[in-house]
Structures are given as C-alpha cells and as structure tokens.
C-alpha cells in the first residue's frame, strides 16, 4: 500500500460534520480503526478482507492504526485468521482465544467484542453485514449505546475526522450519508462483495494484543446442538463467483432455467436470478441477486430476461462487464449494462452457449478462427 498520508488536524470551528455538537471529552480518547475478522467454523469470511481494505484507507486518511479483531477457539484456524489479518495489512490484532468461542453465539461474542472496545477504544468499528455480523453488530452497538449504520456502500472520513457512512435507501434509488454524532465508536456494517478485494501485502506478522474473556460456559444459555451444512457450498460462493449468469421473469417458464444452467456450466460460472423467480419457487432464495439477495462482483455478468429494477441493479453494479439480453430495447437494464442484446433469451441463450463451447474448446483460441 505504500505511503501513509497523515492529514492535518481538522479545523475545530467546523464542528462535527458541520453540526455544532462537539464530541464529549470522554470520547476523544477513542482512536484507530478496527475491523472485525469473521471466523466461522474455521474459515475467515472474505468480507473481512474487503473491510480491511476499506479500513486501511480510512486509517491512512486519519493517520491512525488499523487493527483486526479475532475471536475464536485456541486452534490453528484462529492463528491463521490472525496471520491473514496481517497479510491484508492490519497493523495490529486484538485476539480473544477461548474454547467457548468455538461456535458463534451471541452472548460470548458480544461480551468479547464490547470488552475489547471498552478497554482499547477504537473510533471506528467495521463488521461484515452477514448473518453473524449483523447479529453481533446490533447487540454490540446497543450495549455500547452507540450508532450503527447498516449495509454501507461507501465509507469516508470528513475533514473533521468523522466517519461518513453512505448507504442506499429506497431500494437504491437514492443514497444517504449517515453520521454517528456524540458517540463512539462509529460502527458500520458492509455487505460481502460491496467493496473491492484488496491485494495481499507481504507484511510480516505484527503485534498481537491478547485479551481475556471473563465468561464461563455455564453463563451461556444458548447451546449449539447441531449444524446442517447447506451441502451445496457452491451456493455460498455465488457472491464470489467470477462469472454469473442470471435469469428473470423474461425467461417465461421454470423449464427455461436449464438454459441458464447450461450456459453457466459451459463458462465455469454460477447462476442466480431476480427476486420474482424466488417468489415463484423456481429458484432457491440464496440464489437471488440484489438488494434483498446477494451482492455480486463478477468479471462477467450475463442477465437474461431481467428488466434491471433498481433493487436488482444495486446487487450487480460492481460487475466488471454486464451483458444484458432483453426483448425490450427500453428496458432499464440497458442503462447500466455494457453490452446489450435485444433478443429473445429463450432462443438466444442456447446459441450463446454453443458459441462459447466452440470458442473455449482447447486449441480453439480466437487467433485460429
């Protein structure tokens, strides 16, 4: 990441984010940017790295340090998570390592994280807007009586050093910027794939600050008695797929979904859909793309028979290349697609699949055609 620029201290007269309210003195000791490293069943959720990328930028703007927070059992996976936090450019890591942090449970994680905040006082705390992150962020913010901005799509610091957290509203037709006044830390969640994945750095392991967790298993009411893996772990990867093919109501019938799947398989991608297909029961809910589904950021996104409603658009705008197939030349999707094809998806998808098969066959590179 190279140079760390330090910003001049903000002019005091501006006040906080242009309001007249000043941060109470006891909050002025809150410094540095923290990212919660989400570790579940041995895996670090990639959203944590995306947040470290954002956190790095904010910390550099503020001229403060970036810390990762790792909560987990005494195990290799936890040590791996610590190493990964440094690899993604954290300056230090706060670590609580206890057997009762093996499975995620709200009670234990809330206590571990709030204790850390109270002891070391960060000014900004970022978490992934996953089921785990939202469950945790809500209780931590309430315990600390501070502000929490949900599902941010943009994070910045103002001249006076306050966090400007921007999130979509009314399904993405508008954006709003939210500040946390008079309270610390300023907390925000961000959905997976909304921010770019940063480069790994070759930074050596840094300082690890261990903290105790004054809690016994007997104090935790909730017990995990089982875990049913969704088995189709590739589903969980839709958000992280490099190539995604999705269908909408324009496909006309559930049978036509096979056309999507064929294309996805041909080009090694995953498939998804717009919300109405989930509501019709044509596809599983975890394949929905958009505001109330997954956010994707593939290199190639092919949308067939999708109108491009704003709630869908917000989930796909991070794609490098959007190809839209729609019979209606005025469909809103053509406003944000890169390549548009006014055609019947049902006849076009098989043709596209066929061409891909030929073009991608070994020894059949474009030069040879």
């Amino acid at each position: 990441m190279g140079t760390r620029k330090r910003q001049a201290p903000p002019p005091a007269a501006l006040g906080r984010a242009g309001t007249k309210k000043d941060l109470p003195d006891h909050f002025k000791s809150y410094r540095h940017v923290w990212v919660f490293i989400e570790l579940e069943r041995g895996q670090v959720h990639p959203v944590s790295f995306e947040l470290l990328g954002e956190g790095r930028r904010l910390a550099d703007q503020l001229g403060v340090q970036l810390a990762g927070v790792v909560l987990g059992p005494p195990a290799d996976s936890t040590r791996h998570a610590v190493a990964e936090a440094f690899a993604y450019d954290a300056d230090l890591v706060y670590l609580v390592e206890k057997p009762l942090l093996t499975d995620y449970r709200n009670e234990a994680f809330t206590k571990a994280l709030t204790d850390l905040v109270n002891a070391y006082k960060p000014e900004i705390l970022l978490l992934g807007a996953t089921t785990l992150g939202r469950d945790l962020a809500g209780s931590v913010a309430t315990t600390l009586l501070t502000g929490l901005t949900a599902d941010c799509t943009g994070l910045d610091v103002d001249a006076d050093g306050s966090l400007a957290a921007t999130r979509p509203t009314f399904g993405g037709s508008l954006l709003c910027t939210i500040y946390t006044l008079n309270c610390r830390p300023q907390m925000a969640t961000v959905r997976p794939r909304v921010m770019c994945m940063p480069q790994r750095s070759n930074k050596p392991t840094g300082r690890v600050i261990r903290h105790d967790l004054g809690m016994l298993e007997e104090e935790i009411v909730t017990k995990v008695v089982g875990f049913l893996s969704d088995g189709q772990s590739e589903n969980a990867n839709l958000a992280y797929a490099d190539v995604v093919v999705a269908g909408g109501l324009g496909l006309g019938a559930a049978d036509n979904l096979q056309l999507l799947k064929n294309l996805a398989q041909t080009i090694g991608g995953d498939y998804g859909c717009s919300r109405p297909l989930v509501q019709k029961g044509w596809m599983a809910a975890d394949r929905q793309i958009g505001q109330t589904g997954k956010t994707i950021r593939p290199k190639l996104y092919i949308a067939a028979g999708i109108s491009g409603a704003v709630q869908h658009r917000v989930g796909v705008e991070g794609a490098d290349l959007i190809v839209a197939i729609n019979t209606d030349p005025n469909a809103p999707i053509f406003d944000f697609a890169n390549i548009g094809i006014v055609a019947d998806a049902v006849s076009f998808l098989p043709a596209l699949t066929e061409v891909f098969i030929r073009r991608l066959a070994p020894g059949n590179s474009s030069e040879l055609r």
Partner: protein
Amino acid sequence: MHIVVCIKQVPDSAQIRVHPVTNTIMRQGVPTIINPYDLFALEEALKVRDLHGGEVTVLAMGPPMAEEALRKALTYGANRAVLLTDRHFAGSDTLATSFALSQAIAQIGNSFGVPDIVFTGKQTIDGDTAQVGPGIAKRLNLVQLTYVAKITSIDLSARSITVERLSEGGTQVLKSQLPCLITMLEGKTVIRRGSLDDALRAARSAIVKWSAAEAGIGDITKCGLRGSPTVVKRVFAPTPREKKAVQIDTTEKRVHDIAEEVVACIFTHQPTLQHELTSAGSV
C-alpha cells in the same frame, strides 16, 4: 404463553417513486402495508399459540395511522394490539426505536403478562437495517435468536426452545431458554386468513394506545432524534453510468451470428476472460 410480535407499518415500496428533479421521495398516495417480513413473524407466533395456547399481542411504534396495520394484524388472529405513538419518537434511529419498543414490551409485561417470546421480522423494507430485533433483545436481556428459519420445539415446563437458525454456509441448530427474542426469516408459509370471528373482533376491538409516558418511558431524551446517535446528513441520487450499453445489432441476423458477435465483444472488453473461461468451464 404470552407472545409479543413487533410489526412496523411501512410504505409499500413497490409503489414508491423518487422525484427525478428534487430527489425527494414521493410519498403522496403511496399505500402503507405491514412490513412483509413481519407477517412471517406473526404467522409463526400464531402457530406457537395454536400449539401451546396463550395470547399474541402485536405492538407497533408509529404515527396514529399505524393503527391500520395493527387492526389488520388483529384480523389475522392476534389477541391484542398496542400502538406506541408520541411525537417524541419522531426521528428515531434503531437505538432509539429499540429503546422505545423495549420499554413498551416491559409495560405490556406489567399490564398483560410477561412475554415468553418476542418476535420481530428479519428486517423492514424501508429502514432495512435488521438492527431493531437485536437492540430489543439486548435491552430486555432476552436470549437473542436471529434469522430463525424454524422453531423445532418448545418445552414450556422446562422453559426450553430449539430452533434452526440461518448462518453462513448452513443452519445452526440452537437449544436455548425462554424468554427469548426471535427474528423470523421469511419462509414459504403464507400468513393465514383470519376467521370471520377474528375479522369481527378486529373491527370491534379497541387498540391500546400509549404515549411515551404511558409506556413507562421516563427519560424522553433517549427517544426520537435526541436519543439517536445516527443522523442522516445528505440524500442524493447515485451517479449514473457514463456510458450506455453497446447495443449489438440484432436486425435481420441469425441468432447464431449474433451470439458470435456477442462473444467476440465480451472478449474484446475483457481480454483475460478468454483464457480464464477456458480453464474454468466444463466444455
């Protein structure tokens, strides 16, 4: 068994339009509905009541017109409705909202029996934060069970509950204790049609209306704008993509030729893709 279900009245966002020039939300004439996710919570609460007996109280915080949402909930079969309404609540963020709702739930406990389960929806379709459920749980010191897909069993004598909860990559099976707060996931079950009796009762029933003071809220500075650490400072329209789509000419061409052109265009835009797809695809 006493169950409280929190429901929020929201604008039917499918019908919301943003004014193209002023970037303001055109609320006029937009109908309001019960937050769709809250109907799954209500249905689950009614199912639990079917099995274990007891009462379901629905609670909404909002302007006086939120009474409509509560009355609708009564037609589905809820026993009692409480509306928390006071101009002091205006401008509440999730911290202030969960404070007010938790105080009202405590007051419901005093007046009608302490709840064994508090339900909320997964999230709303307007504020859309999913933060109010956890906020209420923390403030009332209830066990917090979020993203619950299914209540597997409730043992009233042992005061235990087993649920399936969505987590990253699968489903956690959790065994916990009553009283608890459940944020209910949307499911396949649709809300029941209430009986004719319910409809008649809903029309007749008086809805309990509480001001902040009546809900037992002493410290008004924890409510509304004053009790909200977050403030919305700017509202603006997203910047449109500068370029419109490259339209592939599809007039009088064979679909196969169009496909050729599209694939060529994709590889021109993203030259690295050709290699990546070749190695990834199962051709």
